[in-house]
């Protein structure tokens, strides 16, 4: 037998609910269509809820003196399919729904949820100014996006706008003036390195340096076969120093320090138009001798420009041997996702003071520089790391 719900009707344009005042019939009573069943009160008037169709009152689901919203189910009338159809109810739809069909009104729960107003903005609004050298107007940003330029590319423009900002006219003059010069396309490697350096430079980078005596290292190397280069000695020493204390290779993200999980170290290999950085995983777990084959393999892959993706990225620090260019001193820039980079300068004969002999003696010496993200590392910690590396390099047999 179809069960037709008795719905709280819309009792006035702004009325949302009504209170049950009295029941005019009882459960089990036979009722006619449109017969008054329940008396309800709004704040405007008292009126009656009528029967949606002929049948028998199956149940009332509401209480006296309680309020219910418009559209709430107040009870049910059990009717024959014929009576239900005559009253316009689709019995197929009725059968599908739990409370019975909600004819015209929507099936709402009996108690409305009281929502509280959630503010959508927290904190102070940011005032918008056009003044200030760093302000880039929407038009400027759109043009820069179109040309693939970054703020770093605009360093060469003296802005004529308020506060020295670069206006769109300044920008277009600049672009036009560049057109007059000879241009050639930048390789994708160049663009990638440019982007990495730009991002890295957004941090304050500082460098500390130490001249290291490499006599022991060169003696060890002369006695070894096959021979490892100074960069691998430095990488292994860095790995061992970090294995003892990996804190300097952590990263500062917001207010959290992210600790390194594995001593994976990269090393710079110069390619045609940029730098490859292959990575030796868990460099603290293998000795210098055992690292050498992999090291050479990686270099060969770089030269063939076939370095696979798994062999690059994910390192916690890198070593760069700028000494191969004959440079005494350099301040390398750490990769944007790393805190430090260890640079190795060219080795040369230099005088070192020998206290025992009371005179300068010739030694092989090279500058080791450590550039680091100064938000995270201070000079002291950087210095201690370098000193430890120096000590390890003085006893190359432990590497």
């Amino acid at each position, binding site marked *: 037998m179809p069960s037709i719900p008795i*719905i*709280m*009707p*819309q*009792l*006035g*344009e702004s*009325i949302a609910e009504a209170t049950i005042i009295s029941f005019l019939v009882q459960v089990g009573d036979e009722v006619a*269509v*449109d017969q008054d069943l329940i008396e309800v009160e*709004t704040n*405007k*008037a*008292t*009126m*009656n*809820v*009528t029967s*949606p169709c002929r049948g028998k009152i199956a149940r009332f689901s509401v209480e006296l003196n309680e309020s219910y919203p*418009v*559209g709430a189910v107040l009870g049910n009338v059990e009717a024959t399919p014929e009576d239900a159809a005559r009253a*316009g109810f689709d019995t197929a739809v009725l059968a599908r729904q739990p409370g019975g069909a909600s*004819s*015209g*009104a929507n099936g709402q729960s009996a108690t409305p949820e009281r929502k509280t107003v959630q503010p959508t903005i927290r904190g102070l609004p940011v005032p918008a100014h056009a003044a200030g050298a760093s302000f880039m107007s929407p038009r400027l940003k759109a043009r820069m996006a179109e040309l693939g330029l970054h703020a770093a590319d605009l360093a060469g423009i003296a802005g004529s706008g308020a506060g020295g900002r670069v206006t769109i006219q300044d920008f277009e003059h600049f672009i036009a003036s560049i057109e007059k010069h000879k241009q050639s396309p930048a390789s994708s490697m160049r663009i990638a390195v440019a982007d990495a350096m730009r991002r890295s430079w957004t941090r304050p980078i500082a460098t500390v340096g130490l001249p290291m005596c490499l006599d022991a290292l060169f003696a060890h190397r002369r006695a070894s076969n096959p021979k490892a280069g100074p960069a691998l000695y430095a990488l292994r020493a860095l790995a061992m120093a970090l294995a003892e204390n990996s804190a300097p290779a952590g990263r500062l993200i917001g207010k959290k320090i992210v600790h390194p999980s594995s001593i994976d170290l990269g090393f710079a290999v110069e390619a045609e138009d940029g730098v490859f950085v292959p990575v030796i995983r868990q460099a603290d777990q293998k000795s210098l001798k055992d690292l050498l084959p992999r090291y050479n393999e990686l270099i060969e892959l770089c030269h063939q420009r076939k370095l696979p993706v798994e062999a690059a990225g994910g390192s916690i620090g890198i070593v760069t041997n700028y000494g191969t260019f004959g440079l005494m001193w350099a301040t390398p820039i750490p990769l944007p996702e790393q805190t430090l980079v260890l640079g190795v300068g060219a080795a040369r004969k230099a005088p070192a003071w020998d206290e025992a002999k009371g005179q300068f003696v010739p030694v092989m010496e090279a500058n080791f520089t450590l550039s680091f993200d100064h938000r995270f590392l201070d000079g002291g910690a950087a210095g201690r790391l370098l000193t430890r590396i120096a000590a390890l390099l003085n006893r190359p047999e432990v590497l």
Partner: protein
Amino acid sequence: MPPMVPNVAGQTTDSRPSSLRDPFTKAFRWMLLARTLDDKLASLYRAGKIHGGVFLGRGHEALAAAVGLALRPGDVYAPLIRDLAGRLAFGEPVLDVVRTFMGSALGPMRGRDGNVHRGRPRESLLPMISHLGAMISVVNGVLFARRMRNLSGFVGTTTIGDGGTSTGAFHEALNQAAVEKLPLVLIVANNLYAYSTPTARQFVCRDLADKAIGYGVASHELDGTDLAACLEVVGRAVSRARDGHGPQMVVARLLRLCGHGEHDDASYVDPRLRQSPVGQDCLKLAEQSLLDCGWAEVRQIESWREEAAQEIEAAVAQVQREPTPDPFAEDWRALSSRHLADVYPEP
């Protein structure tokens, strides 16, 4: 009420002229249809099948039916809230009524307006806007334009309530009709309450009919519960207007026999008014007159009642199966000149 003349057997009969039989009977049938339809709308409302408000014309049927019957093709009618009997007599189909209330996309307003705000302007049935008094000058405009086109023999009529006579729009429009000498028949249905406000708080002149003097137009006073009186007075006013005697103001006195809308229980109505002559139900009185005058029998009236109920049931059953307006099929354009529609892109 005309005097009751006892016949030989001691029964009373209504001594109305037999020429009245035909219009009286016609009017009664429109009243019956209107009342049955109003009752149906009320129960649909309570069943939650109608969106928005429901406003009925219980108590107004005699007046409204008389207006609808007095109008001819070529006349213009701007009915107000409680004129269902007049609309039906003027030719508005029951389907238009049911479709508009129940929100069928096939109704004359296509869901863009609802309940009593319905009409067909091209067929001289003007759909009202909510602002009371505003339709009077629009009817003036139709009459004005027809005269400019050298048409003649037409009238225009609209209804206003006791409350509506307080508006500036009423004043301005009636004055305009008088100055332009338009064939306007203004039906003032004084049903003693504007929503909950009694007429003592609406005007203090003796009777609304006295306002006509101020505008320089003719007035006719009328007992709105008496169908025969309605037919006679409204008919005369319409004839006067049609014959070029300028605007005619008909003031009918009756009682609203329902709430202002179906959301209102009218508990503020003075119960003494309900007991008094003005509180009588014009439909019941008319039915009694039919019987007393021997113009219809009980069984005949019952069959008319049945016919009305069936016509309405069939309309409701049909409309319930009709589609409601589809917002995605709407072009959401308020101008008829397509090329001038402002385009507001969706964010």
